[in-house]
């Protein structure tokens, strides 16, 4: 009971911090666009800086949110995996200040110890490694990952003192194409690192990484095309706006009715469950995490970063976790309705909180980050649940399973969209697919049935093997 209260309090603190930071991002964006107004009526830049809110978005969304969540995921990876495996996990690092002395706080301080270790370790470069490419590897692995987040909208566009501020670094016309383009750049970092290390195992890891990542690029793109077709856009804000429509029930549009109506939103997961599975799997393979961790291959070759130490290795690691965050963010935006609650209350919330747009925006951004954190958990749970794929299984999954699946899904989606542009038929098919998989998951498997059938049926009160009856006892009981 005490533990539950502590956990809920911690969750509350985290959500409060997220809410505050989101509100700060809005306020900072408005402050920058207004030309840095100061308390006594001065304005640093006359006429303001319209369109410059991206500076605050880079600062707070990319450098604070993504990086801090990625940093804490290094701890979560260890602590959550411990909980999944019935262990305690990291709990030894403490800070010797009054009030915190001897309290591990769930291992939070291990983040600091990890970071300090990475920063202060020797930055070693092998003698025969190519110095330029060796140094370029971690940079090229890390930079595209952060750049990916530029097109992800975290919160709605709100009107703050005449400025329209949204929590999105950039909203280009090409939207998702940016994600595809930049995501495919990440392979250069890993393959360069593997090649420049002048180490056979690193080269092997680099080659594995490039083959795997390039294989899954195709499925990655094809998985999303269904959603783009359904909402007829590649811009993420428009995809999110499309997902606020209710398929059944509720208000048909966000602003038209202020009622607290329930309904089923046109979320991407409902329209495109196969697309979701294909995209999520392919993107998971792009992050090079288990079960797709053949490029790293801890147990065989150490992988493309075998020669890296110190913060260069840290960059590879943090880029992996930043990829996790960004994959979760993109999945949230495309398949889980972005910053909307979805099933109820969006219209009601928008109408009743119209007076304080900054709080409304921060609330929506908090909802977005909650979804992102849940999806981060799902990714970590996948990493700690499933066994690794063999190399041929990875290629089989990518080329022989996901790719045909995505193509068939694409044709079916196109046909259904032509048949019924209101998306309802598409959603019915989607629900049927989801229901089929869930029904299979909840059904008792053939093996279990067969196994149960062979078990001797014992009454419930018998614990352990029944004592063997004496030969004479059975005969005696007949008399």
């Amino acid at each position: 009971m005490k533990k539950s209260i502590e956990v809920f309090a911690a969750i509350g603190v985290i959500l409060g911090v997220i809410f505050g930071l989101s509100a700060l991002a809005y306020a900072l964006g408005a402050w920058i666009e207004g030309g840095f107004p100061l308390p006594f009526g001065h304005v640093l830049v006359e006429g303001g800086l319209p369109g410059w809110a991206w500076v605050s978005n880079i600062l707070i969304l990319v450098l604070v949110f993504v990086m801090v969540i990625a940093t804490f995921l290094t701890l979560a990876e260890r602590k959550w995996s411990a909980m999944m495996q019935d262990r305690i996990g990291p709990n030894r690092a403490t800070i010797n200040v009054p009030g915190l002395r001897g309290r591990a706080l769930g291992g939070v301080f291990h983040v600091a110890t990890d970071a300090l270790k990475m920063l202060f370790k020797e930055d070693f470069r092998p003698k025969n490694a190519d110095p330029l490419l060796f140094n370029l590897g971690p940079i090229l692995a890390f930079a595209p990952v952060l750049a990916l987040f530029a097109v992800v909208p975290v919160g709605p566009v709100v009107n703050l003192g005449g400025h329209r501020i949204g929590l999105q670094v950039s909203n280009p016309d090409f939207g998702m194409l940016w994600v595809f383009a930049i995501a495919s750049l990440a392979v250069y970092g890993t393959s360069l690192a593997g090649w420049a290390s002048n180490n056979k195992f690193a080269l092997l890891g680099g080659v594995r990484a490039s083959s795997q990542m390039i294989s899954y690029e195709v499925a990655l793109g094809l998985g999303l095309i269904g959603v783009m077709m359904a909402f007829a856009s590649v811009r993420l804000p428009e995809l999110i706006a499309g997902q606020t429509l209710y398929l059944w029930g509720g208000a048909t549009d966000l602003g038209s009715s202020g009622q607290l109506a329930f309904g089923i939103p046109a979320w991407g997961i409902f329209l495109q469950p196969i697309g979701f599975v294909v995209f999520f799997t392919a993107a998971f393979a792009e992050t090079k995490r288990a079960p797709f961790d053949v490029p790293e291959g801890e147990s065989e070759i150490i992988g493309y970063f075998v020669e890296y130490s110190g913060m260069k290795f840290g960059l590879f690691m943090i880029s992996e976790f930043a990829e996790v965050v960004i994959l979760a963010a993109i999945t949230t935006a495309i398949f889980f309705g972005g910053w909307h609650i979805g099933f109820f209350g969006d219209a009601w919330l928008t109408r009743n909180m119209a007076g304080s747009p900054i709080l409304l925006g921060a609330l929506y951004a908090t909802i977005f980050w909650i979804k992102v954190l849940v999806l981060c958990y799902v990714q970590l749970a996948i990493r700690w649940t499933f066994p690794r794929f063999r190399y041929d299984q990875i290629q089989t999954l990518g080329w022989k399973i996901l790719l045909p699946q995505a193509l068939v899904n694409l044709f079916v989606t196109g046909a259904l969209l032509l048949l019924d542009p209101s998306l309802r038929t598409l959603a019915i098919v989607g629900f049927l697919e989801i229901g089929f998989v869930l029904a299979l998951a909840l059904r008792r498997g053939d093996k279990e049935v067969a196994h149960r059938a062979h078990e001797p049926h014992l009454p419930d009160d018998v614990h352990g093997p029944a004592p063997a009856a004496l030969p004479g006892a059975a005969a005696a009981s007949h008399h």
Partner: protein
Amino acid sequence: MAYIKASKNPSGDLRERLYLPELIRGLAITTRHFLRNLFVGRDVNSEVQDRTGGNLVSTVSYPEEKTPYPPGYRGLHRLVPRDDGKPRCVACYMCATICPAQCIHIEAGEYESMDPATESRVIEKFPTQFVIDELRCIVCGLCVDACPKDAIRMDTGLHTPSEYNRSSFVWDIPRLLQGPPVSHPSDPWNKRPSSAPPPHQHVEAHTRIGQDVVRPRLAAGEQHQRTEVTDQPIPVTRFLKE
């Protein structure tokens, strides 16, 4: 060329062939463990089998939580004190003789004057030195069995603690003499001249260190002499076969 299609799934079960439902079931199991361990507090009962509650962690985090030893556990030696705080040992050398590791060294002293006022008047000998080399001890417990006076026990339930030099593992009377005092009706100083009830109480302490601890009473100014710790080899076995 021999080619085994190792990835062929022999299962005819639709769920396993589809793979995705099995993944969902696996995730459900993992998440169930995660949620139980996250929201339910851990029972820190050191008897792991007796733990209750929804938390599934069975770790005993050692320095803070310790598993108790079974009752018959042979721990560190102690010299059992009498009621007056002196050791019950009468320096009979039985333990030193039986010790297969030859780790006990005793030097006997004799009571100079038979002072009738003291209750030790019936004892002739006492150990001036009682030294156990805990590094040589093989924890066999034969000394405890051999002792005719119940003067040495291994009931502390403690390990030999870590030390920085070997000489610190040589335990002498001030370190060995600990725990609750013990007296038996058969102790010579408890022999009664008449059948009147004895003025003292017999404490047959089957206790461990920490339970019902009675600090040995010494006379004012009296102190057990501490053994000088030197780097010289300790002549533990010199009394044997000389």
